[in-house]
């Protein structure tokens, strides 16, 4: 029940809805006591032959209005209480989203997308259930249950009430017990199901291999075995699940039996009338729901508490990268002074970068070259402060980058990431992502610079073509060039290409780089790449290997040395000729 305390701030905030809702709920409880009472009264009148036409009409009309009023109040409390609970869901969802937008890269390395999504969906649902169904079951089982028992005891017979109620606590206990057992087994069944899903994913992803080796039958057999396991574990759930209804009917039946057995005695002794006995059994029926609700309440609250705990914990996380040391809101220009002694992601790890030093004047280009895992992306992230904690100094415009507010710092950067991430929106929206109010002409200009305009106009809907699952499937190269256009549109002081030319062919690469040289002679550009042709024209080239700078200089100076750079450059030239498939007219570098 502690979760109700945890959520107290929200109940206070929505106190009007909750108070009105709870009052209505109580009215409904009282209203539902009337029909059994009326039945009892009418039965007694009939037995004693005292029922008149007016009397019957009167009671029927009363019954009708009781029903109608109950209908209206039942509708209204739902709007009040459930309405408030779904507003809580909306509020928490917005809070989480806002929180996510404030979190730094480290947070996203630590937490899997799937887990974050689970918090934003399942956990929010569990909290919403607590604030809605949880409040309902608590109030309803207490008020309706209480009222019914009081009515039975006061208006009919407290002895009979006590006797008939004897089995009911067992009902609450058993259903709660089954509930928690069911929950455990259900989790096991869910795990089996998700492992079946993993198997499907794997089978489909590896279908080429399976077919190459002609092992489809074995694959199907394995699937069958695993789905057998799913059935087995679900049957364990069913074994418990099937207990609910019979248990309920059994215990209620025992209750009825006790009521009639002892009630008959009371009728004979003329302690109660036969009409009262009839009312009594109907009241008994009314108690079933509050009893069950009480059993459920524990499950709802338990889940709600765990979920709310997880959400609170998430919301309490602090962003690692903040404006704490910032003293200017002026976006920097592109002058870099970098002196990294070492950098590691976790203090116990080996350093990812060692001894990286360079200077870059405004308008110059830096090229970073190296194998996968050599530290290129880490360096890029440090330069734009997506990561921090470097042993050394990174200055922009003669000031440590920590002294700029994140907003100011990011104003100067345009970034093209390695993984070509686009949003599910139109191509135009994607290109204008950083400047939503850009004119169509600006969008087209950026697309032309990125050599993707021709591709875009080929699509049926041109710039309005939808990207993503619901729209057109773009090739890796097209995505990459749209991502480039996106960064170019804001005309940033500092443009960063993180291996962003890997999926375009050599000719396109050359024309993009040429366009950059033309347009950005005054501004700083940083390019990391596998292919050396992408950094050939850079003013400073860093060759990284296992986090260390193994060679540094310009293309010309590096070609003069007999090092890694020259060897790889020559080899890549050769391979590009092979890849071009006989275009012998090209240059060999």
């Amino acid at each position, binding site marked *: 029940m502690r979760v109700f305390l945890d959520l107290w701030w929200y109940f206070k905030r929505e106190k009007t809805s909750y108070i009105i809702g709870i009052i209505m709920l109580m009215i409904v409880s009282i209203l539902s006591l009337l029909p059994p009472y009326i*039945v009892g009264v009418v039965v007694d009148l009939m037995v004693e032959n005292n*029922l008149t036409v007016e009397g019957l009409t009167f*009671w*029927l009309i009363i*019954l*009708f209005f009781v029903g109608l009023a*109950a*209908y209206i109040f*039942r*509708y209204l409390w739902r709007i009040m209480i459930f*309405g408030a609970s*779904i507003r809580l869901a*909306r509020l928490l969802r917005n809070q989480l*989203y*806002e929180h*996510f*937008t404030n979190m730094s890269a480290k947070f*996203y390395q630590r937490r899997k*997308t799937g887990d974050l*999504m689970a918090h934003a969906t399942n956990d929010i649902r569990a909290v919403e259930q607590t604030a809605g169904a949880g409040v309902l079951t608590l109030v309803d089982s207490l008020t309706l249950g209480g009222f019914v028992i009081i009515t039975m005891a006061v208006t009919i017979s407290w002895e009979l009430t006590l006797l008939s109620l004897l089995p009911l606590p067992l009902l609450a206990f058993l259903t709660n017990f089954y509930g928690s057992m069911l929950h455990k087994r259900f989790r096991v069944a869910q795990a089996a*199901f998700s492992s079946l899903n993993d198997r*499907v*994913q*794997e089978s489909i*992803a590896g*279908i*080429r291999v*399976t*077919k190459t*080796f*002609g092992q489809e039958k*074995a*694959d199907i057999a394995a*699937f069958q075995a695993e789905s*057998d396991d*799913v*059935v087995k574990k679900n*049957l364990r759930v*069913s*074994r418990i*699940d099937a207990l609910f209804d*019979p248990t309920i009917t*059994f215990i209620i*039946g025992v209750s*009825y039996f006790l009521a*009639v057995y002892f009630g008959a005695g009371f009728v004979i002794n003329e302690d109660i009338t*036969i009409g009262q006995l*009839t009312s009594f*059994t109907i009241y008994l029926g009314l108690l079933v729901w509050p009893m069950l609700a009480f059993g459920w309440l524990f499950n709802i609250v338990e889940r709600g508490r765990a979920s709310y705990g997880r959400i609170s914990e998430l919301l309490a996380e602090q962003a690692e990268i903040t404006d704490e040391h910032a003293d200017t809101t002026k976006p920097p220009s592109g002058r870099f002074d970098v002196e990294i002694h070492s950098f590691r992601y976790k203090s116990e790890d080996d350093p990812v970068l060692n001894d990286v030093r360079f200077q870059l004047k405004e308008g110059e280009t830096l090229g970073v070259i190296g194998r996968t895992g050599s530290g290129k992306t880490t360096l890029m992230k440090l330069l734009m402060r997506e990561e921090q904690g470097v042993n050394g100094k990174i200055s922009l415009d003669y000031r440590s980058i920590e002294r700029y507010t994140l907003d100011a710092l*990011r104003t100067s*950067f345009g970034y093209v990431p390695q993984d070509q*991430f686009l949003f599910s929106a139109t191509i135009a929206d994607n290109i204008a*992502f950083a400047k939503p109010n850009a004119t169509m002409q600006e969008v087209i200009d950026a697309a032309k610079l990125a050599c993707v305009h021709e591709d875009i106009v080929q699509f049926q809907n041109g710039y309005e073509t939808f990207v993503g699952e619901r729209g057109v499937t773009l090739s890796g190269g097209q995505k990459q060039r749209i991502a480039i256009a996106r960064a170019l549109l804001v005309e940033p002081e500092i443009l960063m290409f993180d291996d962003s030319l890997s999926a375009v062919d050599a000719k396109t690469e050359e024309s993009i780089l040429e366009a950059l040289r033309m347009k950005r002679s005054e501004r700083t550009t940083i390019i990391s790449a*596998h292919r050396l042709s992408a950094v050939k024209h850079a003013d400073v080239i860093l060759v990284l290997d296992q986090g260390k700078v193994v060679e540094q200089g310009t293309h010309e100076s590096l070609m003069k040395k007999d090092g890694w750079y020259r060897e790889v450059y020559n080899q890549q*030239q*050769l391979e590009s*000729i*092979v890849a*071009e*498939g006989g275009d012998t007219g090209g240059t060999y570098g």
Partner: protein
Amino acid sequence: MEHTDEQLTTKQQTRILKRLLSYMKFHKVLLFWAMLFLALGTGAELIGPILIQTFIDDYLTPAQFPVEPLIALAVTYIILHVSAVFFNYFQQFWFDKAALRMIQRMRVEVFGNVAHMGLSFFDRTATGGIISRLTNDTERIKEFYVNVLSMLVQNFVFFIGIFAAMFYLNVQLALFCLALLPVVFILLHTYRKFSAKYYGRMSGKLSELNARLNESIQGMAIIQIFRQERRMRREFAELNDEHHRAWLKGMKLDGLLLRPAVDFLSIIALMLVIGYFGIISFNSPIEVGVLYAFVNYLERFFEPVNQMMARLSIFQQAIVAAGRVFKLIDHDEPAPPKRYEGNPQITRGRIEFKNVSFSYDQTTPVLKNISFTIDQGETLAFVGHTGSGKSSVINLLMRFYEPDEGEILLDGEPLAKYSKEELRKKLGLVLQDSHMFSGDVLENIQLYNQEITEAQAVQAAETVRADQFIQKLPGGYRHPVGERGGTFSTGERQLISFARTMALNPKVLVLDEATANIDTETEELIQAALETMKSGRTTIAIAHRLSTIKQADKIVVLHQGEIQEAGNHEELLQKEGLYYNMYVLQQGRRLEAKISG
């Protein structure tokens, strides 16, 4: 197989429902017992109120209490109650069991059908869609089988039972109560109509909201570096609002038509019973017990109605999901079949392409009039850029696809004459993507194949020198392979993939060389392994490594689906074409290296 949510017509829905129900025929015996127990359980449960009625009318009202009949009555009541518990437990469990078996059958059926489809299907269809059919959609159908189907049957039997009991007690009043059924039906129908619309919109908004959230989490770095946090928050809040509004509407609908309405209806029913007995009582004495029993039955009548209405949406979703799943089951796109009589064996491994043309979509030609031969034990290397048709040659040779024109001969016989098993055994394809399956290293080498013994697998690993690193793993060959083999390096995965192929001891080796950069040490291992693998085998390679190309007996340069240049090393040099240029360049580099070194 695109995921389209077109509206299904009533006719289509009925057809899908019928087909869903047809799966019941596989579990006749189980379902028979479940039905029998259901009938017995329902009967036992519903006779209870009649016994109480008998007690009230025959003994309580006249105030006569003979001991023996009363004890008999009480004992019967208790026995019936206990047996109802027993029957109902088992019928519920058996219905569940049948439902789970039905969905399992369907799952295996879909999976089996998918697994048997030709590669052309997988090349054209987004894997996400196939996976979603196999997982999410079948799960929805499971919900239908488990929660809806058995409930419908149970409630139907229950209704029959209730009305039978009511007719037994009082035919006239039972007839009046029958009038409730159309009202319930109208209520159900109205709710169904509106809820399909409202909840459809709500779940649409919810998945939009979740998709947006998911995407934002993945693209947070982009959002932040481009300073769009505020805009994204605002857009998310707007979407959140839209979802909230749709949800609220659904909630209002529920409030109007679900439980509150059903409860109101039960008051009307109560009025009916009271009114009836009231009017009777004006002329003659009434049986209180019958009144009691009617009130009791009507109370029981409305709970199933509530249940059915609450589960309508599951039903709706299951029908849509089943429509998609059946479409996949009915889709037939098998791998190219075996043609011609006879069952030849591949003994030498001589390959001949004769004027082969091919296109994937019948319009854009991918290969144009390709001819070449590879003799037993020779190596042929294909070079060419992406899209030149290299992979298509392999797809045809492996008989994943059939050529549109021309002929492919293996040991002089048409490829189509060989059984699939023979082809898979004797043509060893090493794929660029060395996909790892969960399981251990040994299983990944054997790849489900029962015929490959552990000793053979180990020997294959030794042949390709994968043995060295496998031995060093904890557990050796029993070392578990994590998700997609993530713990292994690209090179190590390649070596395991080589071992997989070598375990079959194929006559022909088909190499789709990886372009990915591999560290020098493993690269050397791989080169050595490839040497061993190629010796004594016919080899056809899509080559990226210069070493592979140079050592080939024949080199074919493909360009836009045509052979641009072909020949061996010397012949190509004499042509002074591409190969000549490459060679000269390489020589030049060596020379340069010598001078500077």
